[in-house]
């Protein structure tokens, strides 16, 4: 089980470069669905047809892209300057290993003596261990992308640390759900979306194609059980599947929220409510594209999101799988 997750996490897929991870997810989900295809943007859209006479369309959506960097300048001394792709936390990224698409490795570091308060993208460079521009250009070119190295390590209990749990853990929830949803009444669409980290762009196109009646995103949400988290993060690691009420991008459909809560209660699935005061998810695009849909989100709590060492609890993940399956089988 954890090995399936590790497989999904190991394949790099920086926003707009999701080809390889898309191909892997296609291969994983294929045996459990009726059709699977890739759209022009790279979104993987799979569907399991429902048995009802006039089935509704339920769209599950998890993004397969991850944050990273793109090379924008190579200095004469071989140091590589990069521009960010998505919400990079530079304090967390400092002195961390990065991997390019072609396998080249480097370390991203701030210029010496830079106070962490003053960390800005311009202050960072990647050390490839080369001395000249020519040597650097043999390894990477302007426009090449890299991401923090992918890892996955077990901690205490059912907790794991590594990256990118955001949002391969959502992709994993969808693949596990697909294995369990065998004879749905409604059409269940599994969408692995591209470019979420740069503005939920992939899911806009995918939602337009699917035109769902109900949209459920599966994504991560910051856990409030860390020192100094402040008073407005109500989600806790190990507290179960988080049912999103809002984030900065969306007010979830209130009826879908209460339906998800009722299902969780009825099936005895651990759940908690999520009210996020920032952040955005594919929920917003599913809600508003074309004629719109009733949209919500099931979230996996994660500590230290967007760092090298995100932490999740597999018990929460199990709860998310159960709630996703139950939601697709219920008449929403």
């Amino acid at each position, binding site marked *: 089980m954890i090995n399936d997750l590790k497989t999904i996490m190991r394949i790099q897929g920086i926003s707009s470069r999701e080809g390889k991870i898309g191909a892997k997810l296609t291969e994983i989900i294929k045996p459990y669905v009726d059709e699977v295809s890739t759209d022009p943007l790279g979104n993987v859209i799979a569907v399991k047809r429902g048995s009802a006479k006039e089935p509704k369309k339920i769209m599950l959506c998890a993004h397969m892209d991850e944050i990273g960097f793109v090379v924008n300048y190579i200095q004469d001394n071989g140091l590589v300057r990069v521009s960010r792709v998505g919400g990079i936390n530079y304090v967390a990224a400092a002195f961390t290993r990065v991997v390019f698409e072609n396998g080249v490795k480097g370390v991203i570091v701030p210029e010496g003596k830079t106070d962490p308060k003053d960390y800005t993208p311009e202050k960072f460079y990647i050390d490839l261990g080369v001395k000249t521009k020519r040597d650097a250009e043999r390894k990477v070119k302007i426009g090449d992308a890299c991401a923090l190295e992918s890892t996955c390590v077990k901690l205490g209990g059912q907790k794991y640390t590594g990256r990118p749990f955001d949002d391969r853990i959502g992709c994993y929830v969808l693949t596990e759900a697909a294995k369990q949803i065998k004879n749905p009444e409604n059409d269940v669409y599994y969408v692995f979306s591209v470019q979420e980290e740069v503005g939920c762009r992939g899911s806009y196109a995918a939602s337009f194609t699917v035109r769902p009646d109900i949209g459920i995103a599966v994504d991560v949400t910051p856990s409030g059980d860390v020192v100094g988290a402040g008073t*407005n993060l109500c989600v806790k690691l190990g507290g179960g599947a988080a049912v999103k009420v809002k984030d900065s*991008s969306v*007010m979830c459909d209130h009826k879908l929220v209460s339906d998800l809560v009722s299902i969780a209660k009825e099936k005895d699935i651990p759940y908690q*409510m999520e009210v996020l005061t920032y952040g955005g998810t594919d929920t917003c695009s599913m809600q*508003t594209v074309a004629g*719109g*849909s*009733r949209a919500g989100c099931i979230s996996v709590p994660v500590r230290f999101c967007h760092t090298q060492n995100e932490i999740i609890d597999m018990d929460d993940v199990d709860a998310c799988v159960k709630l996703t399956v139950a939601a697709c089988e219920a008449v929403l």
Partner: protein
Amino acid sequence: MADLFDLTSRLTCGGSISGYEHGQIEALEYIRDKYFDEMRREPAGSYVFIRHAKKPGHPRIMFDAHMDEVGMMVTEVLEGGFLRFTNVGGLDTRILQAADVTIYGKETLYGVIVSTPPHLQTGDRMVLPGIDTLMIDTGLSKEKAEELIPIGTPVGYRFKLTKLKNNCICGKGFDDKICAVAGIAAFEQLINDGYEGELILLLSTKEEVSRAVVAAVYELKPDYAIVSDVCCAWVPECGKEAKRKTTVGDGPEISLSAITDVRFTKRLIGFAKKNNFKHTVCVEATSTGTNANDIPLVGLGVPTLLVSIPLKNMHTYSEVVSLDDVADTAALVAGFIKELGGERNG
């Protein structure tokens, strides 16, 4: 003429923070029964009201006002029945302390946002509290509060509606229900005058937090959109040099921007001038900060104009508007729709 005060009272008495517009369902059903043939809630949450055409051939004109209002949402229940909360839409923490609120939990409950009295304050009194340090006092035990108020419960300003002098009124949620009142009044006037075209009222969802209006417009495919929202009225604090001087009592403000349709807007301004409808014109270079930003781009595009009602104290529980401005807006909109209705489709 519709009873503007009564309509305002019906539309603002309940809670309808963004995404929870159904909190005003009684008012919505009242409007449907009185003026329209059908009402539906579209998937993203907007309410669409349609009065069918009595004769074919008129353009399809949609009037949009957003049905949601700013508010709060519970994030945690604390010892002593206090609630932590976050904002839904733009709130000003200066006016939150000691505010009366209504909590739309499993029961509708009253609460008060706590404030530290000057006697107990230490340090710099001028420092504004962050919203995450404010709490709502429910007067309940923690156990009871947890039972009645799940995390995610919406909270709104307490309803209060007061008549001021000069036909002004003071209350909460006028942003943007006062414009819905103007739209309904305009439609009533059209109906009384025997207008035979289709009339579409869109009471849109989640304007304060998103661009969810686009979903409803995509399905409706109107020929024209008239968006109405409130605008910040001039007050003395703005100074005499302020570029915008429209204030309460000046009548509707017509927006000229790069986003709304220029020809359509100029046609309205010309119509207002020619027929002596009270109005002002405002220039908003690239953004109107309203649904008029998004509606023009839906589908193949919708010619859109924006007519605003001046309002003081926006996003507070003491918003002030003039019912004369509402009546003037209704008259202008009704007159203009009649003019548009005269043109034939195709």
